[in-house]
Every structure is written in C-alpha cells, then in structure tokens.
C-alpha cells in the first residue's frame, strides 16, 4: 500500500471547531419559538398500581396545555409502576415553572405492592414478582451447544438449543483436570451508566413531519422504533441528531420497549402531534440517575487446568440484574470472557449459563462492554487465584491460554452465527508491552513479601470484547459526493458519541480519494438527509460503517476518474486524484481540474456532483476466509490492562492509582482518538474505587445517590491512565487493518483492580466496589457488620 496521508494521522476532530466554540448544537440547544416545556411526575413507590389519578386541578392551572396519564395516553404511561422514578404522568405547559406547579396538583392514589430490592431477594423462592406472571429470574433465551467441529478450521458446524451455552464435555473436562479453581459469589455492583448530557428531546411538527431533536446512537434504528411506538409511518419522522453528549451504550433509545429509559421520546412525540407545538422534554440529572443502570451481576466460576497451567475446562454461571425490565441483551456478553472466546486457545470443554434477574430497582441499559466487563471480572479474578495456587506468574498464565489469531469465537452471538474465526488477537503483545512499561519482571513481588503500612500492588487482566456482529441487520450505508470545486462530502448516519467516528470516517474518504482531509465535509445531521447506518454498539463503527465509507469513496473516485479520462482522452487506470485535480500518475504535470473533468455546467444542467454509494451488508466479502460464507472472520477488541496502586493497611484507603491500558487496534486510524478511547478505562476506576453501587433505601426504594455529588465519577485528580496502542497489521476485516476500539477499555479494570489489591495485601475481594471497609475487613482489622444473608 502506498504511504498513507490521512489514515493513521492525528488529524483534528472533523466537527471539533463547533464543539470548542459552543456552536455545536446538542438536542437541548435547539430552542424553538413557542416551545412548550414538559415535567414528568414520577413514582414515589418501587412497586405499585395506580388506583386513581385526578388531574382536574393541574389541567385548570393557567398555562397548562396538556396533562398526560395512562388514561389518556396509554402508549406513554402505565397503570402499574415498577421502580421509584417510574413515569406516572406528565405536564406540558408554557414554561417549566408552570409545569412544576401543575405537577404538584396531580392527585394520585396508589395501591402499594411488595417490592424486591436486590438480586438475591429476587431469586429467592416465593419472592414477589416484579412483573406479574413473569419469573424474576429468567434464562437467556438463546443458549445453545456447539458441536461437530471441523477438523481443519476448528469451527463448529452444529448448534443445538440447550439449557446452557458451550461445547465439549464439562464433566469429563473437570474429571481429567489436574488443578481445579473455583470461585463462588463474585459480585459486580449495579452501577449507573454514565452520560454527560442527560436524556431528553424536543419534538417539532411542521405540518407534514415530526422532527425529533435528540441524542442518538443510531438515528435510523431509533427513528423506526419511535414511529412504531407513536403509531405513525416512519416516513413521517425525521430524527435530528447532529451531536450527542456521550452515551456509552446507555442512551441508545428503544421506545417500543416500555422498560427501557427512552420514554421522553414518546411523551414529547405524542404531545407535539396533538398540540401541534414544539415540545421539549428534558431529563434533569436526578431523572437521569434513575434511567439506565448496568453491570450488576453475580457469578460462579470454575476452571480446570493441566499441571503445566494449560486451561482445558471452564464453567461460568452468571446472573445479570436488569432492574425493572430494561435491556436483556448485555448478559450473554459475559460469555466473551470464557473459553468460548477469550480463553478459546486451549479450552476444550465449556459451559456457560446466563440468566437475567428483574428487581424493582432502576431499569438496565447497555454500557460500554455490555456484559463483558462483568464476565471479565469473574473470570480474571479466578485466573489470578489459579496463578497463585499453581505458583505461576499472572502474566504467564494468561499468555499461555489467551485467544490467538485464528482461534475460534463460539460465544459471541449464536443469534447470527455458530462460530467464527478470530481475525486478530495480539493479547500476548499487549501483556508484554504493559509488563515492560511497569517493569513487571523486576518489580512484581508476591504479597507475602510486602511489609509496612503502605503496600504497593500490581494486578493484570486481559479482555475480549465484541466488534459488531456480522450478519443480517448489521448493515451500514454511505454516500460519498465529489464536487466540481474539488471538495467532497461523506453522507452517512454513523453516530459520533465522542468515540470519533465522524473524524475517522472522513479520514477514510480522504485517503481513498487522494484528497487532503480538510477537503472532506460531513453530512450527518438527521435521518432525512442520510442513508441507513446501524447503531454504534459493540464498537462496530470502524468496521461496519468503515467498509461502507471506503467502498462508497472507491465508487465516487472511479466515476470521477472516468469523467477525467474522457476529458483527457486517456484510460482511467492511468489517472490519480490530488488536491488540484486529476492527473496522470506517470506524469503529474498532465491532467485537469475537477471542474474541467465534470464538463460544462449551468444552473439548468451539467454535472454538479458525482455520488458514490455502497451498502455494507455485513460481513463484507473481505470478512470471509477465502471468500467462504461459512468461514466468517470476527474482529475483536482485545488487550491487557494493568493496575498499580498503594493500599494503606491502617485505613484501607487506595492511592497512586495508575492504569496501564494496552490494546491491539490493528491500525490506529487516528492515534489520538484511540488513546482517548483507552483512557475511558477510568469508568472502571469509578466503579472500583469511588464506592459506586446502587444504594437504595430498602424501606422505600429511593435511590440514595441521585446526583453527581453523592454518586461520583473520577476527575482529573483521581488517577492517571497510560494508554499503550499496539498496532499489529494484517487484520483482513477492515480496509486499513483496523480492528475495533471503544468498549474494550471498560472490560478489565475491576478484575485488574481486585488482583492489584490482592497483590498489595493478600486480601482477595470478589465484590465491587472496593471500599476501605472491605479492605480492612479482609485484613482482619475490623469486623464485617453486614447481616449474613
């Protein structure tokens, strides 16, 4: 490949100027004339039915335009309430003060029901049901056994629905194992999915069309779903989302599911359609804090090894909290951490049982990693215990067993394929790079050798995360336009939620066309102006949108070269594109301008733009080994993370927290963006060290930390992250060899943290968050005062 000019460079963020000048319009910045304000009355009870609701006084309050309840808007409100903060009613008024005053005038009579406020309580025999007639604990619906392995490729050819996921013979595996390590009762606390910009939207009806201004992870997906929820044709909705103030998976809207926290869309949409006035429905931080929780899980792990440390067998039992309904998808991603993916190199026997559990806490949403961080926490702490028991170096046991390029992924998504070939790994390189950065070989010490009040510890964990899923429904499209003035535009709907897609996709266009990056514009404003793109989830944008963008640019370039060839009287293959126009590759002094190639133009005719177009019906042909449809390559996020910290053995306090995050990204399309993605490891530090947990008052179900003062996120002062970007070339699944980068950073932190605390103190903590109290209990300095369950 010729030397790259745009890809691989840390060019400026494509829409960065607007972000730093304050001109960028996030949804709440669209302040429309005559816009009405909405306030939502929320449930004070964790489980209740509404017996009666009287809105007479609220409706009579001057300035009130509409009061919405389950009686007049059953599409938006329910009679039954499932958590404190669930939607009871909404007031739409001339301003927010009036709406708040009127909200206080709504009289509601509730029939209190018995709630379940924890996973442990929810799965107890005879526990009250969160949703009537539905068991609180449910198996994942797609468990399947893989069998009939192809001797050449190792791929499984047969998938049989079963009670659990896996392959091989689990009983035989453990019977033949030399060493078995088992951990029960691992717990990752239920944590709030983060977002800088709280949820909300503004709906505006223009006489023919409903324009929905909101944040988005996938405008087209969300639009279709909204239209269905509102009961209007999709063609009547224009979803407008030029900027999104971070999301991390949680703000992905799915208004058809009543348990997912995207109710603002239906509330504002219905009100706007009926009132024919713009309706603004913003969530306050307090409302945001009861929307979109994640991570909460319990797990049991059992791993079998040969004497030399070879991992042969793994059993994972995993329960994922979904709160009052919420997103059921994340739980199965725990399989990514098992012998099905992350340890597939040597694992012969795998079982994984995934369940999700409803409670009367706040509804769940996906969050960076979607279940993988929970699985990694369980498996990677157990691997550390195994290393300790077998007297192995924690880095070496992982290098010996982790997945490698060409190994099999059979745990990712049996919804769409049986098993796939891992297109690139590099975990071993990441382990080496991180260990070298920390001088692990010379500085790592066994906990028994540590003395003194302040003890230093280092821990490691590896991770594997998704990268979209190849198969139906995961398509993305792109148009690339080239204009006679020599500029070009990428027209696509890929969401930039902070991960940099708008920038890297434009870099791909610049690279293919041979134009400078500055000449590439972006059209990514709303659904009316863009073709379909799948939502950015599972870190798939670089890959699934990437191919669409690349191929559309190739198509546009081909058309322009054809025009120029006709103008110059040569063949297109002899031509190249540059900033000043089209030129003969062999003799750059000969050529023509874009305007000359496009020919004569008037406002009545002539060629005004050339449009290249491509639909990437994933997998792209390059994502198949030797073009064979049954041999799908799956790119992964993968790498290793190290945590180093100091523990004060008198107070249990942690200090000098440093995260060393190494990830193989194949090719860093924009190195600074990639480093920024690796720095999102801090979310793990939030969950590990800042006490983050879903603390509710058990008497009434109220969240005790409904703000950013009591529920903390790391600041510039809390820790340092040292990103190590590894680029191992050759991943065939991307035109420039890039693999995914985004969610990986969220996966390993809690395990590496627990391992570092163990390394410092010899105390093994298997429940998050890692509080000073839990460390002191482990050290035997204070008593565990919690009631035994």
């Amino acid at each position, binding site marked *: 490949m010729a030397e790259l000019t745009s890809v691989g460079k840390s060019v400026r963020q494509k829409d960065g100027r607007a972000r730093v000048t304050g001109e960028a319009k996030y949804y709440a910045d669209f302040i429309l004339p005559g816009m009405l304000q909405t306030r939502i009355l929320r449930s004070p009870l964790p489980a209740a039915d509404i017996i009666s609701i009287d809105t007479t006084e609220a409706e009579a309050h001057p300035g009130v335009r509409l009061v919405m309840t389950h009686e007049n808007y059953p599409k938006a409100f329910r009679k039954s309430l499932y958590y404190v903060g669930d939607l009871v009613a909404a007031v739409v008024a001339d301003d927010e003060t009036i709406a708040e005053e009127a909200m206080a005038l709504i009289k509601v009579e509730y029939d209190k029901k018995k709630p379940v406020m924890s996973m442990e309580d929810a799965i107890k025999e005879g526990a009250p049901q969160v949703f009537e007639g539905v068991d609180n604990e449910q198996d994942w619906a797609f468990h399947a056994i893989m069998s009939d392995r192809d001797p050449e490729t190792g791929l499984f050819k047969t998938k049989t629905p079963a009670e659990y996921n896996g392959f091989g013979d689990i009983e035989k595996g453990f019977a033949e194992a030399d060493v078995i390590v088992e951990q029960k009762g691992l717990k990752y606390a239920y944590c709030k999915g983060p977002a*800088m910009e709280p949820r909300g939207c503004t709906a505006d009806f223009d006489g023919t069309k409903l324009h929905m201004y909101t944040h988005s992870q996938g405008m087209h997906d969300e639009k279709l779903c909204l239209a269905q929820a509102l009961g209007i044709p999709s063609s009547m909705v224009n979803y407008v989302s030029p900027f999104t103030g971070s999301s991390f998976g949680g703000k992905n809207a799915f208004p058809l599911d009543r348990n997912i926290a995207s109710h603002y869309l239906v509330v504002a949409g219905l009100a706007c359609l009926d009132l024919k006035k713009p309706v603004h429905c913003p969530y306050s931080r307090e409302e945001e804090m009861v929307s979109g929780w994640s991570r909460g899980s319990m797990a049991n792990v059992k791993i079998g090894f040969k004497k030399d440390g070879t991992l042969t067998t793994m059993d994972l039992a995993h329960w994922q909290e979904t709160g009052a309904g919420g997103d059921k998808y994340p739980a199965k991603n725990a399989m990514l951490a098992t012998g099905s993916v992350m340890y597939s190199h040597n694992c012969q026997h795998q079982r994984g049982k995934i369940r999700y559990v409803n409670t009367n806490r706040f509804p769940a949403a996906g969050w960076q990693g979607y279940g993988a961080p929970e699985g990694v926490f369980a498996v990677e702490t157990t691997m550390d215990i195994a290393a300790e028991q077998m007297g192995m170096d924690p880095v070496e046991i992982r290098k010996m067993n982790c997945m490698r390029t060409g190994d099999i992924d059979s745990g990712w998504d049996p919804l769409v394929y049986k098993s796939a070939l891992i297109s690139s790994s590099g975990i071993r390189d990441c382990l080496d790079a991180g260990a070298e950065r920390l001088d692990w070989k010379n500085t790592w010490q066994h906990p028994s050798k540590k003395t003194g009040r302040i003890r230093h510890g280092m821990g490691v964990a590896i991770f594997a995360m998704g990268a979209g899923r190849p198969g139906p429904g995961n398509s993305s499209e792109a148009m690339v336009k080239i204009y006679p003035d020599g500029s070009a535009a990428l027209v696509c709907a890929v969401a930039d939620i902070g991960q940099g897609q708008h920038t890297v996709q434009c870099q791909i266009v610049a690279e293919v066309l041979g134009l400078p990056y500055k000449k590439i514009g972006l059209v990514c404003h709303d659904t009316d102006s863009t073709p379909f793109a799948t939502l950015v989830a599972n870190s798939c944008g670089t890959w699934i949108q990437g191919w669409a963008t690349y191929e559309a640019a190739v198509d546009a370039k081909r058309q322009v070269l054809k025009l120029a060839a006709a103008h110059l009287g040569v063949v297109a293959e002899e031509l190249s594109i540059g900033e000043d126009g089209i030129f003969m590759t062999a003799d750059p002094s000969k050529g023509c301008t874009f305007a000359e190639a496009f020919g004569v133009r008037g406002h009545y005719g002539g060629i005004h733009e050339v449009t290249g177009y491509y639909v990437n019906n994933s997998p792209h042909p390059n994502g198949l080994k030797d073009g064979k449809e049954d041999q799908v390559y799956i790119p992964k996020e993968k790498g290793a993370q190290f945590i180093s910290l100091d523990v004060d053995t008198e107070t249990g306090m942690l200090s000098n927290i440093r995260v060393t995050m190494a990830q193989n990204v194949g090719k860093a399309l924009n190195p600074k963006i990639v480093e920024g993605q690796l720095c999102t490891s801090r979310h793990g530090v939030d969950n590990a060290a800042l006490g983050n947990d879903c603390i509710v008052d058990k008497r009434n179900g109220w969240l005790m930390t409904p703000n950013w003062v009591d529920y903390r996120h790391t600041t510039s002062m809390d820790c340092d*992250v040292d990103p190590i970007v590894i680029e191992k070339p050759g991943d065939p699944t991307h035109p420039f060899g890039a693999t995914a980068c985004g969610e990986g950073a969220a996966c390993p932190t809690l395990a590496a943290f627990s391992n570092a605390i163990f390394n410092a103190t010899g105390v093994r903590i298997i429940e998050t968050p890692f509080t000073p109290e839990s460390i002191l209990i482990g050290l035997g300095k204070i008593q565990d005062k919690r009631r035994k369950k």
Partner: protein
Amino acid sequence: MNENQKKLIHLTVNGEVQSIAVEAHWTLSKVLRNDCGHTGAKEACGEGACGACTVLINGVAVPACMVLAVEQDGKDIETVEGLAKDGELHPIQEAWLEEYGAQCGFCSPGMIMTTKYLLSKNPDPTDDEIKEALGGNLCICNNYEHIINAVRSAAKKMREQV
C-alpha cells in the same frame, strides 16, 4: 408568571449589554441559554457538580447553574462564544483541537472557560495545578490526559503571544 413580577437586569455578555426581564428564581445558565442565545454553556447536572456550564463572571470561573441571574445585574459575563475573535480561534480553543481535548464535547465549553480562568491567574501552571484547577469539571468521556495536554499547550501558546 405575571410580567410585573419580573425584574429587568442588564448583563454585559461577551462585551455586549443585554437587558433581560428575569424571574427571581432563574439561574444564570437558564438565562444565558434561553434569553441570550448562548447555548455554549451546557447544563449537565444543575447542581454545580460538573462544571459544564462554567462561565466567567467579572473574570472569575463560576458554574452558571449555581447563581441566580437576578444577582448578576451589572456584571460582566464571558461565555465560550466570546473567545473566538473575527473568526480566529482563541489559543485555548486551538490547543483543544490540536490535542483532541473534546471527545463528545459536552464538557468542553466549561473546561475551556475554567482553563481561561486558570491561565489568567497562573500563566505557567504545573501539572498538579492544572489537575486541581480542573477538579470541578467532569469529563465523562474520561479524556483528562488530552485535556491536560491541551491546557499545557494553551498556556505555552498564550505565554508566547504576550
């Protein structure tokens, strides 16, 4: 709300005097966003915990969600929209673009205004001083490494300009 219950205040916003009738409980961030058209000040928490709405009031960085507009009568307010002059970005904004200081960008206006305040008091801050100054500004994208680089780079640019 009866218009008579509003009070007319005069704010100098980015050098221009604006006369606005405000209700007693309106915050400065609400007035800047809804009445002055300066939506650069983002509101993310409404309780002074994140710094996204930071503006300078008489030269001092303040979260605009934590002060009442009616109390700012006669004061000089500077928002992120006031930084670029004649299409030329301010050195802090340039540094933000060079160092990739914005990921989703929602915290950027507040971070940038806090940085302006820091550099007005301390043109050559140490890393610890930068971290402490930004300690009240959350970046949920966790882009602090780049943000700190941007502040360092902005300080250098501004020292060279003087």
